[in-house]
């Protein structure tokens, strides 16, 4: 048993020490104050001003995908290099991994590396390495948690697919170039088997992008495909095997889970705030209920940290982490909302003030989090469904049987 906290760089070999120094020096020159300030507010990395330009610069050095071979646009660096870059970014700007994966092909890259043909790897990997941006195209109006019931159609025509249908909540589709589309190519097969993964071009004729605005203040999109032609060579993996590609991509998405820094930062800020802010003539931190609330939140942050480390420990041991990752995801998303909720309560009436408002406390981050963290309970998997998975996969409970007579949509 060992709970010693990892000290950044403590296991570095001589080579790694040199590389870390090189990365640090480059970052010190290239991380802008705008970038640092931009991460002071609770936001998806992609929307931080200057983030996309920064990612492009990283891409030019091959550092978005440093461990990929140079022929694919990577830097051909040894294993561990990506971690070093992510760590060094994180010491200067919040949430380093967000820059390496959240913006660009952090999901698509490894998937194409595993499942793509040699030609596809030659075509797409260098683009990803240079910072080409993908929007996810999974969810539809009628296919959310039940993703397998997606209906967007891809029909073969010559050497193309003709795509008709729509995708919902496709975040980033308004600035990304490519669409990571899960498409139904074989409607005659059972629903899990008739899906293919196709890379769409969001600038192609027939594609319409409509803005949706979330309460978190961010833009997401509905994307309509009206007889859009996509070359069949854009299909990753065999036709009808899209479901296993989706699973690969979801596993890749899980990789940086748990490095979400906001719960710890917000709780620490709140504790400091309570010490410095007086109500009814004395500091909030002397109010017994405030003390109880903040101590519980501090404990919860530590629990999240330990759940997260446990996943890393299981990965090192080669164990299946699906349910353990789900635990992290559930706890983090619910804790984030709890922190926002209780933080606003601690602030009282001030809690409702938005970032930028006069008298907003702690930059209005708690009010913003109260709105922005809502999505984390269902984005990346509904917590309700994930709890089912934890019980069935982690504890062997039997799965819920399908309805004898399914309801037609």
């Amino acid at each position: 048993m060992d709970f010693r906290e990892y000290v950044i760089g403590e296991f570095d070999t001589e080579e790694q020490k040199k590389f870390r120094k090189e990365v640090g020096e480059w970052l010190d020159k290239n991380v802008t104050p705008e970038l640092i300030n931009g991460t002071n507010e609770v936001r998806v990395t992609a929307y931080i001003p200057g983030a996309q330009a920064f990612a492009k610069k990283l891409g030019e050095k091959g550092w978005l995908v440093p461990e990929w071979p140079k022929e694919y646009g990577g830097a051909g660096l040894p294993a561990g290099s990506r971690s070093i870059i992510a760590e060094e970014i994180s010491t200067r700007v919040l949430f380093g991994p967000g820059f390496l994966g959240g913006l660009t092909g952090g999901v698509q890259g490894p998937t194409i590396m595993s499942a793509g043909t040699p030609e596809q790897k030659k075509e797409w990997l260098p683009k990803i390495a240079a910072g080409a941006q993908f929007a996810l195209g999974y969810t539809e109006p009628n296919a959310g948690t039940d993703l397998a019931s997606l209906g967007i159609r891809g029909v073969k025509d010559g050497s193309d697919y003709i795509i008709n249908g729509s995708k919902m909540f496709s975040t980033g589709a308004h600035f990304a170039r490519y669409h990571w589309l899960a498409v139904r190519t074989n409607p005659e097969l059972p629903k899990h088997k008739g899906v293919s993964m196709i890379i769409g071009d969001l600038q192609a004729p027939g594609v319409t992008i409509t803005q949706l605005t979330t309460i978190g203040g961010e833009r997401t999109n509905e994307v309509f495909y009206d007889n859009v032609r996509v070359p069949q060579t854009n299909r990753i993996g065999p036709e009808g095997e899209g479901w296993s590609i989706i699973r690969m991509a979801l596993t890749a998405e899980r990789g940086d889970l748990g490095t979400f820094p906001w719960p710890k930062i917000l709780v620490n800020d709140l504790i400091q705030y309570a010490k410095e802010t007086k109500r009814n003539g004395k500091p909030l931190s002397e109010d017994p209920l405030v003390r109880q609330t903040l101590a519980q939140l501090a404990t919860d942050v530590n629990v999240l940290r330990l759940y997260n480390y446990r996943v890393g420990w299981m990965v090192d041991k080669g164990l299946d982490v699906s349910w353990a990752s789900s635990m992290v995801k559930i706890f983090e998303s619910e804790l984030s909302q709890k922190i926002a909720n209780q933080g606003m309560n601690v602030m009282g009436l001030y809690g409702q003030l938005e970032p930028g408002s006069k008298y907003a406390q702690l930059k209005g981050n708690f009010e913003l989090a109260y709105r922005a963290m809502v999505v984390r309970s269902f984005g990346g998997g509904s917590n309700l469904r994930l709890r089912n998975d934890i019980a069935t996969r982690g504890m062997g409970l039997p799965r819920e049987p399908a309805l004898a007579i399914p309801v037609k949509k």
Partner: protein
Amino acid sequence: MDFDFNDEQKMLQKGARDFFEKECPKSLVKKMAEDEKGNPPELWQKMAQLGWLGLIYPEQYGGSGGNIIDLVALEEEMGRACLPGAFFSTVLLGGLFVLNAGSEEQKKDLLPKIANGKVVLTLALNELNPNYEAAAIEAEAKIEKDDYVISGTKLFVPDAHIADYIICIARTKKSTKSEDGITAFLVDRKSAGINITVLKTIAGDKLCEVAFDKVKVSKKNIVGKLDQAWVPLVKTLQQVTVARCAEMVGGAQKALEMAADHAKKRVQFDRPIGTFQAIQHIIANAMMDVDASRFLTYEAAWKFGEGLQCAKEIAMAKGWTSEAYQRVTAAGEQVLGGIGYTTDGDMQLYYKRAKAAELTLGDGRFQREALAKELGM
């Protein structure tokens, strides 16, 4: 980070699980709840022979030289088995206090006797205002020539009625700081002026009222130094709290397994009830509770064992585990329904123990307040 026990600790756990399955069946547990004494003698001797009563004491005091993680591994199995009896009072509360506070002579005298199963010991701390704080210690010990005379009422003293010795925490000096002037006395239970009443508890453990009416104790029987018992007492309570958390983790794990097993087997509406989402969610939440309890406890134990600052971690561990064990067993009762409600079943043993464990050594509220202080609030 490594969340696992080492090979030897795993062997200890497996051996302990097999041992308790054989030597501490639930029938014995239930019997002991009704039994007047509550410390099954054969089981006590067998644990002594395996070196478990002296596990945490150094070899020079007749112990087995184990560390706190070894103790955590064993305590999980004790919790799983609902082990009744004097391990908590004798080995942990009393014994660890002697180890932390006692003179060389006292350690060489008492600890081997505990390790060999020859002596039952307890520590009387709480009084009518039982809040684990120095200010609540009002029992007085007044010097009269070479003896101290102790008067006061102690409550919730585990196993006092069968103990050979009771370590009584009393005030010997009034001071501006309430932690100063507290002394520990090793008192023979059979001393004149001691009156013991066994209380009826939810968990069936034997907690006692011990009334001291001008009880004479030789000043030679001060455990450690005059007026300076509080510091070693705090250290002792840290270790005891970690051990208690581990016991709770073991019990919570078993309660979770029982609920999950029932959900897999029980059929209603032509399907195992574990296929209903509500039950799956109850189990998932219980799994998260048990895992968090476990990791917080392990981290606290590890830090204590490394000699690092661990007051925060211990507060988090006990605070969380107190409420988590209660949640898990309450959820277990919900899942089991009627058969969890009768005394034939075993879930009720964990349900009752969980509540008592929550209240003992500081509940969630107490621990959060302690943590708030540690966080500088």
